[in-house]
């Protein structure tokens, strides 16, 4: 009853707001994973490491050139997108069509490779490996809404994400490229027969997924301090989201991400911090026990 009553207090709204911001990061990760899955039918467990790579690229350029991280996000997205295409070609293309377990295995090799190459780079540049936080021009300032403090950074993140999602929607739904991508996602063989280069689509979809991860990572580095190991959990949670929201479903990924962000923050406030990371998998396990192929999966 006490917990229930406190839901209407001011702190409840602040829990909701913070949950929404974390939810955006999950949504972007899940969206990227889902595009890769839709086109390639491959799961990349190393998505979180790609996200952290994006965060570090934004961080390094911004400290090196003294430019605000927000302006560097597109550059980071392009670099990571290109790297993503390379990763697809080197690591995922050779194992395509073999056992599905190989995707998990190669992802874990990739996790080791990305984490340690990042750590080594940081060691060379910074002389020590410790968590870092990006500061922007908006850091420290916030807007007061009643007794609720809304950090300006978070509002900018909300705005930038909305703009990106609209651009993304237009590209996927209205352009001829988007049509080709959706066609490959719906039926690979038919798309191939229609003259679409599905191999190139694989590479591009992986690039887009990686670029979205870089966007998520840059935001992650603005709201949290991060190190090379902070990406693994968010990405695997993002995979839980796309199982729940429907493999290949874009609205499912976005809504699922936001819902998870809110759920985690409410869980943290009621059950305690350790359950924060466990709750996504608890929900996932319960759903999969009832429906082994996911909510929207075919039996």
């Amino acid at each position, binding site marked *: 009853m006490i917990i229930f009553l406190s839901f209407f207090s001011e702190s409840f709204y602040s829990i909701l707001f913070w949950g929404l911001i974390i939810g955006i990061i999950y949504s972007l990760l899940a969206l990227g994973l889902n595009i890769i899955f839709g086109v390639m039918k491959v*799961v990349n467990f190393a998505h979180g490491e790609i996200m952290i790579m994006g965060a570090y690229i934004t961080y390094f350029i911004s400290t090196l050139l003294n430019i605000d991280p927000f302006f560097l996000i597109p550059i980071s997205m392009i670099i990571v997108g290109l790297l993503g295409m390379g990763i697809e070609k080197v*690591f995922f293309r*050779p*194992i395509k069509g*073999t056992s*599905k*377990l*190989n995707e*998990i*295995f*190669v992802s*874990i*090799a*990739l*996790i*080791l*490779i990305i*984490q*340690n*190459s990042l*750590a*080594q780079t940081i*060691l060379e540049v910074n002389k020590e490996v410790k968590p870092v936080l990006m500061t922007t021009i908006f850091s420290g300032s916030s807007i007061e809404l009643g007794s609720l403090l809304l950090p300006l950074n978070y509002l900018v993140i909300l705005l930038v994400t909305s703009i990106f999602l609209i651009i993304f929607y237009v590209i996927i739904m209205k352009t001829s490229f988007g049509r080709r991508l959706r066609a490959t996602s719906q039926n690979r063989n038919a798309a191939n027969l229609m003259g679409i280069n599905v191999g190139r689509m694989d590479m591009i979809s992986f690039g887009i997924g990686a670029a979205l991860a870089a966007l998520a990572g840059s935001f992650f580095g603005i709201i949290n301090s991060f190190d090379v190991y902070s990406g*693994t*959990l968010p990405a*695997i949670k993002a*995979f*839980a989201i796309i*199982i729940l929201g429907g493999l290949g479903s874009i609205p499912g990924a976005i809504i699922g991400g936001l819902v998870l962000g809110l759920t985690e923050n409410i869980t943290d406030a009621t059950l*305690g911090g*350790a*359950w924060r*990371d*466990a709750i*996504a*998998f*608890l929900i*996932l*396990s319960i759903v*999969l*026990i009832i429906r*082994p*192929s*996911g909510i929207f999966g075919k039996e």
Partner: protein
Amino acid sequence: MMNKIFGKIQIAVIAVLILIPLLFPDAYYLQIFSLILVFAIYSMSWNILTYSGQVSLGHAAFLGIGAYSSVLLAKNIGLPPLLTIFIGPIFAAVIGLALGIIVLRLREWFLAMVTFGFSLIVQAIIVDDRLRFLTDGWNGIFAKPLVGYISNYQFMNYYIMATITIGVYLITLIIYNSKLGYAFKAIDENETLAKISGINTTLYKIIAFMISTYLAGLAGALYVHGITLFISPEIFNVQNSFWPLIFTLAGGLKTPEGPILGAFVIWIAWIQLSSFAGYLALLAIGFFLAIIIIFAPKGLIDLLTRITNRILGRQI
């Protein structure tokens, strides 16, 4: 059956495990080899589950449950650690039984996800305030040493680990050459076909889960009583769930010797490299793993047998 089990490779593996302390009588090296053996047992446990066509990305859950049960039994009831390392894992097997039943219908990624999440769920339960009186939350608890503080205790320690490693290795060999192993293999290759051939796939999948989780718990108990002498919820970390996979893949997936060979090669390479290369050591291991997965999916053991056969001029 005995002839089938004891080929040249098997005798070589056992001989190497027994002879190591005579070749490296240094206490420091013995500690490292004991640690490697713990991870070899852990990897063998993971490998048995994979042999039955199921994959776990959350085996750290059972490593931790076995370890916690053993430490708590030794601490609160006063049983000797040499006994609790075998009793503790029973809890891991019981929980493995429950999870095995729950995930029966799940495959591939879905199974990987649920098992991955399970280790986080167990961690959340262990650090929960209501269990603080037992586990002391994130602070962790001290574990009694496996052998008391006698001189040359590293020797004793190593031979206890080696005996158990050989035991687990023999169990794996017996499973592989028995009806149980054939059933596992049939399920792995085609579950529907296995079912049609009259194999009770449900029963065998659960048996695989129980054997695997018992052995993972045993590895956990050995790890805390024999190596760290301390246990904290850090044992449920993601890395601990990934290690058996890395070792087994490197050595040879679904082969009995693979996990042992992989644990030795990767650990020794890591220790040798990390002294001068820092993070580059794990980076190299990552690349090595990717190369194995892409170009030599049968692992090092397969390469090794092929090379020895080539040298000896034998046809396979």
